[in-house]
């Protein structure tokens, strides 16, 4: 979320430099000449568009204008006015899919509200919905902008509710909470309660334990000791059995599958310390360990909870993809149009697409032509032109024309659907990483358990004293368990993670450092990862002198990346640029822009667009070309190319020098992939890959026995990201990409990938050192315990000493030097 916001503001500042006038509604800043100006009493109001003006007046007439005080300086999206698809909300298919009916006849729906930027927006939406007749409940979540609305179907229709939300400048689309969310919320609540109990228990035990230790050194009567013991016992019991239940469950599943895992260690360690402490309490011999029981459970539980949280976030973004897809499509049967729910589409049906519609079913174009935005699939921002006989893929967006196509797949096997279901699968399970993380502790715990058992039976047979044998057996587990392994890994990774975060590299989970250190293959996406993803001018040629303002005004009318590239170039080279009022602006997608200024015809676009105006331009280059003509006279020519990110070549060289194989996976065509690969020094390239094909490549690398790190930024990379062992996303990338990824690079520099590698390798070394040390500690302490030499004082001292050693060694990671890149 933060990354997205940051990106957004960044974009805003670029597009609308300061010193302009802010729109009264949305706070975006524009030049005065393009704004709608209105006088209201002694105040002058400025609006950037009709939409914002409308919303402003609506709010002030409803008495809701305190919204603007609450809003402060936050910038909103300009209110767009669209109301073409409202009828779909009242269709039967839609109702069956998203609306739940209450027992008393009320309807309930879960919506995602789009366009919310701050809490004032949430306030406004709730307020307006509350005022709407027939709406009985409307709550909006401040964190993920999801809303739950309950209404009376006799009084108001859903389409009317959606219209209300749209009328104040927001948009809403439904999602199905049963898919993922309900379960995610339930686990989160469950963990939350368990943590509360655990924290309460362990904090209280701690202060009782302080009294205990003070008494141990200064002497304390047995009666007082008993009181403290009982109090600790009462507090530790719910912590172990309620909060620690997840570990017992995990250990049980592990036992059923014949796996000894971290849960087994935690559960057996905590349980045996608990039993031993009860024994010590009842017999009034030895020391109790209730405090360590509670501490172990609390710390490990909090760690697990963080994992649950990150899963929840991923679910939120997944819902928004699914929610924005249509549930019905227009089908042509016997020359008649009808809306049919996508589940009922069969192969061979003819479907009509309107401009701006999202494709949900794959097919082949039968009549018409138009350009499609496939950026969510291929990552390439340029629209693709399609005509009769061409394939269209679900997930792409029809941009400019009406066309018909024949369905070649049904809804469930179409591309978009399969992407979503693959993602769902990958969010719920990520087995490879957990296996790696559990491997070491698994061996360790089985060995300790075995030694404890041997010690117990040995002492029992030889000494014949059951009680004494039991104490020794348990003390082996107690002395080995909490500090040795418990701290070795988390302490080092914690330091590693915090250093990484300071350098703009966010590791979502500690174990990822370990996995990354072991990886031997790095797969990189091209657009947006190695390159900027924004074309910029590399070469210009002025054929005739012309007014730069004309070209600037022309390209400013379009949002196409090429136009933006030209505009950025002009801004860089000219100090005073003015936007001139152009007339008759026409944008022909995938070709160019046409307009006129004071009766002069301006055209700008690619070669084929120039040819339609009778201008002969023909050349071959690996760069993208843009021509500008005034009155059918060619005046300028620009070559644009996607520039490499800063330091990409060096970073890749250094990663290769570490012995990591680097490959490039891209949806772009071979030629441009080759060019970029040569510049950065990658020899292994896989071009023209669809999203699933990227994922298949990752699977193939896995089969070859590699541990794969994948870096990417778009929706087209998400399946591959989810499949790889470590997924690195760029901070400005698509929301989904960020949520399935394990590492996020805030500064987007390829150099950070190299730093992440070095840091994880250093951290992993520290983990190994820590493990080695704690193993050494155990080699000395455990035999002593087995021989029965361990008294409580020695145990307490050696435990804290060993922890201090582990902490100290971990802090040494901070000495790792990076080349400073200020």
């Amino acid at each position: 979320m933060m990354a997205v916001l940051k990106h957004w503001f960044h974009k805003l500042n670029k597009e609308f430099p300061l010193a302009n006038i802010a729109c009264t509604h949305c706070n975006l800043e524009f030049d005065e000449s393009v704004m709608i100006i209105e006088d209201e009493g002694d105040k002058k109001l400025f609006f950037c568009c009709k939409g914002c003006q409308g919303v402003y007046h609506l709010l002030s007439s409803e008495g809701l204008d305190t919204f603007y005080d609450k809003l402060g300086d936050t910038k909103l999206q300009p209110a767009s006015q669209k109301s073409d698809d409202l009828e779909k909300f009242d269709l039967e298919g839609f109702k069956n899919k998203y609306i739940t009916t209450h027992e008393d006849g009320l309807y309930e729906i879960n919506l995602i509200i789009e366009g919310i930027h701050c809490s004032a927006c949430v306030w406004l939406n709730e307020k307006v919905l509350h005022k709407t007749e027939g709406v009985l409940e409307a709550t909006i979540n401040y964190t993920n902008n999801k809303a739950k609305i309950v209404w009376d179907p006799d009084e108001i229709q859903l389409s009317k509710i959606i219209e209300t939300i749209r009328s104040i400048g927001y948009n809403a689309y439904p999602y199905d909470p049963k898919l993922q969310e309900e379960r995610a919320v339930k686990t989160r609540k469950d963990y939350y309660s368990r943590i509360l109990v655990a924290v309460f228990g362990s904090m209280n035990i701690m202060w009782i334990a302080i009294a205990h230790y003070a008494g141990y050194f200064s002497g304390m009567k047995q009666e007082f000791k008993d009181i403290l013991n009982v109090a600790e016992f009462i507090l530790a019991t719910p912590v172990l059995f309620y909060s620690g239940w997840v570990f017992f469950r995990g250990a049980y599943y592990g036992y059923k599958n014949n796996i000894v895992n971290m849960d087994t260690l935690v559960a057996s360690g905590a349980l045996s310390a608990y039993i031993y402490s009860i024994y010590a309490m009842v017999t009034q011999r030895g020391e109790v360990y209730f405090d360590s029981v509670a501490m172990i459970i609390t710390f490990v539980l909090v760690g697990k909870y963080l994992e649950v949280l990150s899963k929840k976030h991923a679910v939120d973004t997944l819902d928004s993809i699914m929610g924005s897809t249509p549930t019905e499509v227009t089908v042509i049967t016997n020359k008649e149009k009808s809306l049919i729910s996508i589940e009922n589409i069969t192969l061979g049906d003819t479907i009509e697409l309107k401009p701006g519609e999202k494709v949900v079913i794959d097919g082949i174009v039968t009549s018409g032509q138009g350009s499609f935005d496939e950026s969510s699939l291929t990552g390439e921002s340029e629209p693709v032109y399609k005509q009769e006989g061409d394939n269209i893929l679900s997930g792409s967006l029809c941009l400019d024309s009406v066309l018909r196509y024949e369905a070649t797949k049904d809804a469930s096997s179409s591309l978009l659907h399969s992407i979503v279901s693959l993602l769902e699968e990958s969010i719920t399970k990520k087995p490879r990483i957990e296996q790696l993380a559990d491997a070491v502790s698994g061996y360790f715990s089985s060995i300790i358990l075995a030694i404890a058992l041997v010690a117990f039976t040995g002492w029992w047979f030889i000494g014949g004293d059951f009680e004494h044998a039991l104490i020794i057996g348990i003390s082996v587990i107690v002395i080995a368990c909490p500090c040795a392994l418990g701290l070795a890994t988390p302490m080092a990774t914690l330091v590693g993670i915090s250093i990484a975060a300071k350098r703009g590299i966010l590791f979502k989970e500690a174990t990822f450092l370990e996995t990354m250190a072991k990886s031997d293959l790095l797969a990189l996406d091209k657009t947006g990862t190695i390159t900027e993803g924004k074309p910029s001018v590399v070469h210009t040629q002025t054929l005739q002198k012309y007014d730069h303002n004309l070209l600037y005004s022309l390209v400013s009318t379009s949002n196409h990346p090429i136009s933006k590239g030209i505009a950025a170039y002009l801004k860089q080279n000219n100090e005073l640029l003015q936007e001139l009022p152009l007339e008759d602006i026409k944008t022909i997608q995938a070709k160019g822009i046409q307009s006129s200024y004071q009766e002069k015809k301006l055209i700008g676009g690619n070669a084929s667009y120039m040819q339609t105006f009778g201008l002969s331009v023909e050349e071959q280059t690996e760069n993208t070309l843009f021509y500008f003509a005034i009155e059918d006279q060619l005046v300028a020519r620009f070559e644009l190319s996607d520039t490499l990110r800063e330091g990409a070549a060096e970073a890749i060289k250094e990663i290769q020098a570490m012995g990591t194989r680097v490959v490039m996976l891209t949806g772009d065509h071979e030629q441009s992939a080759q060019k970029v690969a040569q510049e950065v020094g990658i020899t292994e390239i896989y071009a023209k890959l669809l999203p699933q094909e990227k994922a298949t490549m990752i699977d193939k690398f896995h089969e070859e026995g590699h541990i794969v790190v994948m870096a990417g930024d778009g929706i087209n990379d998400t399946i591959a990201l989810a499949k790889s062992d470590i997924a690195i996303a760029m901070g400005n990338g698509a929301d989904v990409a960020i949520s399935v990824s394990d590492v996020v690079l805030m500064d987007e520099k390829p150099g950070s990938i190299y730093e992440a590698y070095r840091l994880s390798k250093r951290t992993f070394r520290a983990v190994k050192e820590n493990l080695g040390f704690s193993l050494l500690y155990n080699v000395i302490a455990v035999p002593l315990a087995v021989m029965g030499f361990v008294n409580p004082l020695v145990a307490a001292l050696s435990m804290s000493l060993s922890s201090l050693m582990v902490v100290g060694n971990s802090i040494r990671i901070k000495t790792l030097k990076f080349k400073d890149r200020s």
Partner: protein
Amino acid sequence: MSESVVMLMIGVSTFLGALGLIALLWGVKTGQFDDQSKFIDATHFDNEEDLRDAVMMEEKRKARLKKREEEKEKKKNYMPAD
């Protein structure tokens, strides 16, 4: 200091703490902590107007219930003329 004083002190303080814990658990269970940002952000706008809003929503619900009851009542009393 006698044992009973220590016992009383630990007992009372733990009990008071436990009351707080129970309140928190109840809060979690009824979904009051489902929305982290609401804690921080929503408090900015907390005023009596919101209370009025809440009352208004409650009344809407009540009004609807009443209407339904009346309709039911009508149906019950409806006797087909045979």
